[in-house]
């Protein structure tokens, strides 16, 4: 039972990080969104595994919520949004793909180093995986900074959020339910808002140049 729990946790959490790295690797925006969906599913799997292991109903519900929200709804919304421009690809990221991957590697090592202290407070099967969560956050943020497409930006944002979620599950088996609920709704709303903005701005100009606009500056 315990080994199964551990390996399930390892696999699912690893998948979350792997998905994050994959988003850096691939160029097609739709592919990236799909990878995000996979990550959402893995994240919910982490929550569910933890919930089953700790008999935590609140976390179970949370896992379900995440499954629906981050596994299905948000990727779905983003897929719809990316349909505005079906051929859209990350053709010219600010940091090119090979360099991004190297950077991702560096970030992963870094997060391993920095998470040691957090883990050491309460070493357990779950908390030792915190580096994966931290790495997801950093890789997600990296994606957010370096990718040009609007959808990619949103994906980066969700990656960061997923990473934080992962850290939260691993460290504390989730924050109090009400907080979890609120934050999930917030994330959803943010995505909705961003999608709305994409659509509205798309009406004014080419979606492609959405994130390149520099009308407001000093």
């Amino acid at each position, binding site marked *: 039972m315990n080994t199964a729990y551990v390996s399930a946790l390892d696999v699912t959490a690893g998948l979350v990080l792997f998905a994050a790295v994959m988003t850096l690797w691939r160029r097609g925006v739709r592919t990236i969104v799909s990878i995000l969906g996979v990550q959402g599913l893995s994240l919910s799997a982490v929550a569910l595994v933890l919930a089953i292991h700790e008999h935590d109903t609140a976390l179970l519900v949370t896992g379900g919520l995440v499954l629906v929200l981050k596994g299905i709804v948000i990727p779905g919304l983003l897929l719809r949004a990316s349909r505005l421009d079906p051929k859209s690809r990350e053709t010219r990221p*600010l940091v090119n793909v090979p360099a991004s991957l190297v950077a991702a590697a560096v970030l992963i090592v870094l*997060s391993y180093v*920095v*998470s040691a202290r*957090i883990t050491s407070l309460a070493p357990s099967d779950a908390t030792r995986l915190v580096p994966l969560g931290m790495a997801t956050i950093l890789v997600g*943020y990296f994606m957010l*900074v370096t990718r*040009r497409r609007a959808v990619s930006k949103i994906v980066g944002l969700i990656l960061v959020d997923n990473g934080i979620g992962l850290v939260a599950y691993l460290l504390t088996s989730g924050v109090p339910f009400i907080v979890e609920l609120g934050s999930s709704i917030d994330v959803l709303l943010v995505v909705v808002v961003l999608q709305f903005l994409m659509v509205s701005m798309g009406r004014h100009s080419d979606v492609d140049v959405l994130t390149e606009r520099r*009308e407001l500056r*000093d």
Partner: protein
Amino acid sequence: MTWYLVALSLGALAAIAGATLPRRVRVPVAAALGALGCAVSLVAAVGDLIDGRTILVHSDRLLPFSGVSLTLDPLAALFVVLSSLVGVAACLYLVGYAHGPSASRSAVSIFMVFVLALSVVPLASNIVSFMFAWELMALSSLLLIVTDQAQRPKARSAALWYAAMTQAGAVSITLGLLLCASRAPGQSFVDIAASSSTLSATTRTAAFVLVLLGFASKAGAVPLHVWLPKAHPEAPSPVSALMSSAMVSMGVYGIVRVGGDLLHGGTVGWWVAVAALGIVSAVYGALHATTASDFKRLLAFSTIDIMGLSLIGVGAAGVLEDSGMHADATLAMMAALLLLVAHAAFKGALFLGAGSVERATGTRNLDRLGGLVHTMPTTSVVVALSAGAIMAVPTLSGFSSEWLLLQGLLHGFTDTSTPVVIVMLLGVVALALTGGLTAVAFVKAFGIGFLGQPRSAGARDSREVSRWMGWGSALLVLPSLVLGLVPGLVVSLINRAADTGLGGVATTPVSTGAGLALSQLRGAIEPAALLGALVGVMVVLALAARTLGQRRARRVDAWGCGREEQTPRMQYTATSFAEPLQRVFADVLRPQMDVEVTHAVESRYFQQSLTYHHRIADVVEVRAYRPVFGVVHRVGVLARRLQNGSIHRYLAFGFVALLVVVVVLA
């Protein structure tokens, strides 16, 4: 203190009246209340100076976190006297002066706030109260400068200069005062004075330097003076009068209060610095005053000059006190304070007079004035007497105070330490240099501006200004006469204030009487007797002339070197009057001159017109301030590149921050 509170309430009432009453009665009512308030505080302060008592008031109901503290000691009382005196005159003057934008609700109200703030500054006795009053004084004067900015483009940039420099000064003072209080249990001046000796020498010096920078800038000390010759001329005249007489004095007050009273004197270096500022200011101010042809600008530079002299006195007092010559120190301090009071009166009168001239003629350019002595007799007498006072004509106030200053400096020579002697020597030299230059400046101001023939239509058609303006300015001649003729009557009051400024040990270096007589040394003046002698001789001469010559002089044309007609344009102008001196000091003043000649079409040997342009920029401004502004502006322009509008970059800022956080803390 009750009377002060009455006075302050009257001032506040005046401000409210100015803000609320309808246009017709606004100015007279507000001015009457303001003048009454000033009069009350003037009388109360004189009374308290005579009694020599110290009163404290504290209330926690005002000013959050600190409460308001007011303390009346002789030093404060003297400055209350000074500012209330000018306040009364300025309020009276305002009745005749205010019209158009300067009679608007806000202008009248803010004027009253300014008058009020001026008399609260010396009373305030904790950091927050002091800075509150100080900044209120700055703000109200700033707003008053721009009251008629719509008509005066120059006022706008002057106000900006003033605002920036006064705020930089205030920041410096705040920091200095806070440093003074860093070991104190509270922030009241009593606490600071009690605990300042426990501060480290470095902190004390840092605090003093900071405070000095701020106060010296307010006092217009070179090189922190740049705002003064811009702002004082551009303000409406009653405001200029208040600024140039009462407000600048508060700078000196601050130096004395903090350096002498709160920090107990400190080291000799401080006071050498004060004296050095004074010496430079005196000479620089006097030089520029001689060459200025704008009447109010001339007055502003002469303010720098007199403030310099006063700082020399304060610096000398500090230096002497440091080397243990308490009596001589008191003498120098008394001289500085007496000079301030005298200056407040005559400079106030001069600015008010200049305002009357501007009102009557529409210009304050001396090159376009002339002959006002015929059309504006009252103003002419006021300006003549006050100019006499500033030139230190014996029997007027400038003379007695400068004499006292000279005595203070002279007796400092008996000390043997080098810094003392150097300060005394250079102080005397500065005093001597400025004496002659001031005379040139004011002979020019009065001789060109008021004598001769009018040089413009405005001057020709001028009329004497309203009675209120006349009375207001004439009121300030009175102190010049009193301080000049019977200085002995007030000198004991000044003595008390000087004692407070030097740490409270009472000495009486000047014995009281009608004139001034040093009690320990040989030196005395009897201005009243001197005036008696002068008048006596003149009466004898007049009688003799009457018996010998004809009673009436015959009016004839002036000698025109053969020309029949004398036109006003043939007269010397202010610019040409000062030209020789300007040439002598060209290296310091760096005048820019150019002559445009338009030749006649027929022949190049004949000139159709000839224009002479001449400008004296402030060297300090051009060489020291402009480059700094340039650098700051460049920083601003460069910084704008930071926010280039790219969301990628903005996100990267956050990413870097995140990396730094995790790397540093994990």
